[in-house]
């Protein structure tokens, strides 16, 4: 799971300076990115981790922080395991 976390942080690092942001912080409320960026996150997670983001998964809570994305991936992977 540490690997997922690292990969997500690397992706976010392409768009803003992530050094001072903890894994639990809401990147949208911090104002670094807008809601359009959430869709980029959805596509990134689908491509990189080979998961399918379904309609019911399309809620901001799943993508708002590194922790939420890591938990989301864990749920998806356990559901398909």
């Amino acid at each position, binding site marked *: 799971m540490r690997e997922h976390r690292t990969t997500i942080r690397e992706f976010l690092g392409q*768009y803003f300076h992530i050094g001072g942001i903890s894994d639990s912080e809401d990147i949208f409320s911090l104002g670094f990115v807008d*809601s*359009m960026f*959430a*869709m*980029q996150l*959805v*596509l*990134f997670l689908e491509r990189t981790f080979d998961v399918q*983001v379904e*309609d019911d998964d*399309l*809620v*901001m809570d799943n993508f708002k922080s590194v922790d939420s994305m890591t938990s989301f991936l864990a749920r998806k992977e356990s559901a398909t395991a």
Partner: protein
Amino acid sequence: MSAQKRFQTVGVVGAGVMGCGLAQSLAASGHDVVLVDLTPEVLEQAGKTIRQNLRYSRLRAPSSAKEPTSAVLERVHFTTDYEALGRAEFVIENVTERWDIKKEVYGHLHRICGPEVIIGVNTSAISITKVSSLIQNPARVIGMHFMNPVPMKPLVELIRGYYTDNGTIEAASTLLAQMGKEGIVVEDMPGFVTNRVLMITVNEAVFVVQDGVAEAKEVDRIFRGCFGHTMGPLETADLIGLDTILDSLVVLYESYNDDKYRPAPLLKKLVAAGLLGRKSGHGFYPYSVDSPSSF
């Protein structure tokens, strides 16, 4: 024609940014859509774009998405065959703002669509009266200038051509109401209200950057911070597409024969370099190519 009836099947010609947004908006409001473009590749990309943008709408406002994404998409019939428009009760044309291209498309519509079918011209600059001369029964032709992104913009500029009759205006208003939108009727002069004012503003903002008066981000900040605009003129240009801006300016320039519409050389240069804004990944600003294309 009966303006009060509900339109169920709507043809959309052109699957670019506007055509995709329109098809999405129509399908999401329960209409069957026949989306026509020239190649399977363009249509395949359109399918992906519409799906992404439906998902984005759901993400932004989960409560507004009443049906599964797949159910909405199933109402869009993607085709390269103009004949499929034969079952449409209303057709909205969204092809490139070039007269030679429009002329060819209206040749197809003239042949395939019955004289009672309402024809909406989704243009930002081309004369509705001139377009209506390409088709039988010009009274059923009306300008419908949708704004981008179509699903998020509640107002539409409706343009009355010289021959457009009141029944056609009522019919277009009915379709817009079915889509949860409203039209504002204006008269047919090049650029109407929106583009006549917007394009010259965008063009002057490009001149400001070209002349080194300010950088793009400073120009946009001034419009947002000083005038309360949601977006500055250059961000707006990137959203619309710099090629579309250039095409619109050329149409205005040729229509009024007035130098005030001459396109800025920097705008021409960016378009020539393929920097078209959001849709190409770079315009006045860089974008990720994964961005939903019509947002």
